[in-house]
């Protein structure tokens, strides 16, 4: 799994490539947490290159969602691929997270 970070105004875009699962969860949370500690609580997770996600991976994601929301921010997802979307739907995550077709709309969704 590879992670790259980019700042767009007040929003941090974290692009992930590969698999978000129990084995990559620790480093994923690490990257996200580094942003949150640094005060960046408006995060867009760019999932365009995420091919697989597991239940443990989702739980890791949820950790960041909670941490950002506790501080008044949010983690929103962009460009989720069909297979991964299916898992998000199955696990109820589409009910509790905001999803967008691309990075631009996800970034724009945060209030100015």
């Amino acid at each position, binding site marked *: 799994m590879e992670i790259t970070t980019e700042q767009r105004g007040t929003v941090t875009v974290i692009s992930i490539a590969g*698999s978000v699962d129990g084995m990559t969860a620790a480093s994923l949370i690490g990257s996200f947490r580094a942003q949150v500690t640094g005060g960046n609580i408006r995060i867009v997770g760019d999932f365009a290159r995420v091919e697989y996600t*597991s*239940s443990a991976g989702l739980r890791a994601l949820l950790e960041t969602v909670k941490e950002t929301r506790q501080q008044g921010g949010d983690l929103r997802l962009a460009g989720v691929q069909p297979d991964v979307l299916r898992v998000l739907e199955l696990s109820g995550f589409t009910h509790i997270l905001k999803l967008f077709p691309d990075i631009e709309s996800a970034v724009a969704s945060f209030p100015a």
Partner: protein
Amino acid sequence: MSAGAREPNGPRVAVVLGSGSVKCAAALGLLKVLQREGIGVDMVVGCSGGSLYAALIALGHDVATAEAMTRRLWTRELTSRRNHRSFLSVFLPGVFGFDESFGMVNDRLILERLKSAFGEATFEKARIPLYLTATDFHTGEQVVFESGSIVDAVRASIAIPYVFRPWPVGGRMLVDGFMSDPMPVGVAIRQGANIIVTMGFESPYQQKINSPIRFAFQLSSITSNNLLKANFSFHNLAHHAEILPILPEFKESIHLFDTDKIPYVIEEGERAAERQIPYLRRLLSGA
């Protein structure tokens, strides 16, 4: 399928088979793939249609035998004989005594066939721990079978509401497990499983709702499908390790008694299982 030579605190692999009638045969496709990969199953949990396959797997039957047994067991004839007293009790409850033992279909045949498939087999005879679930009709709670007669447990687990009458076991009136938990991942979690491989299907919706009984079936499908999703979502969050859902896709519709489509169903089960193999292998080697 033996537990294999594995360390006591190594990963425990559980297979959970939920409701879905004929589609549940896809579990045999999953079994084929696991056997081919040399992945041992340490525990099986079954509910509704899945209970049949869970029992067959736990008793150690190979795929070919299990397939043949299913085709003999599950045919249209099962619902061909009506339960006349039940029908009459709907219209004349005072005379024929409508009560909880209502069931539109005469269940003598299904019982005979279950007995010929499982005989006197008990849970204790299973090669790996087996758990089958049903629902208590008075309290709505899930009831888990882990001992006693397998025929009793399977008959209770597949007591489809309105179709087969509830099945009494141990002083409780039991109905289809899907009313309390269509895919009982919670049972596997409670029993300490680490990697949980699941397979379960939504109940079909009616094309047209033009009679009370179709309306009843539609309600049953709507509520149990939503329960399936809600429970899966919750168990996902509650588990400490991994839940791997196997999601076969069927290009044609599979109806309640389409047993001639079983080979196709098994194939799709295999295909779906293959998709999880890479990650499953990594989990088993890395953990």
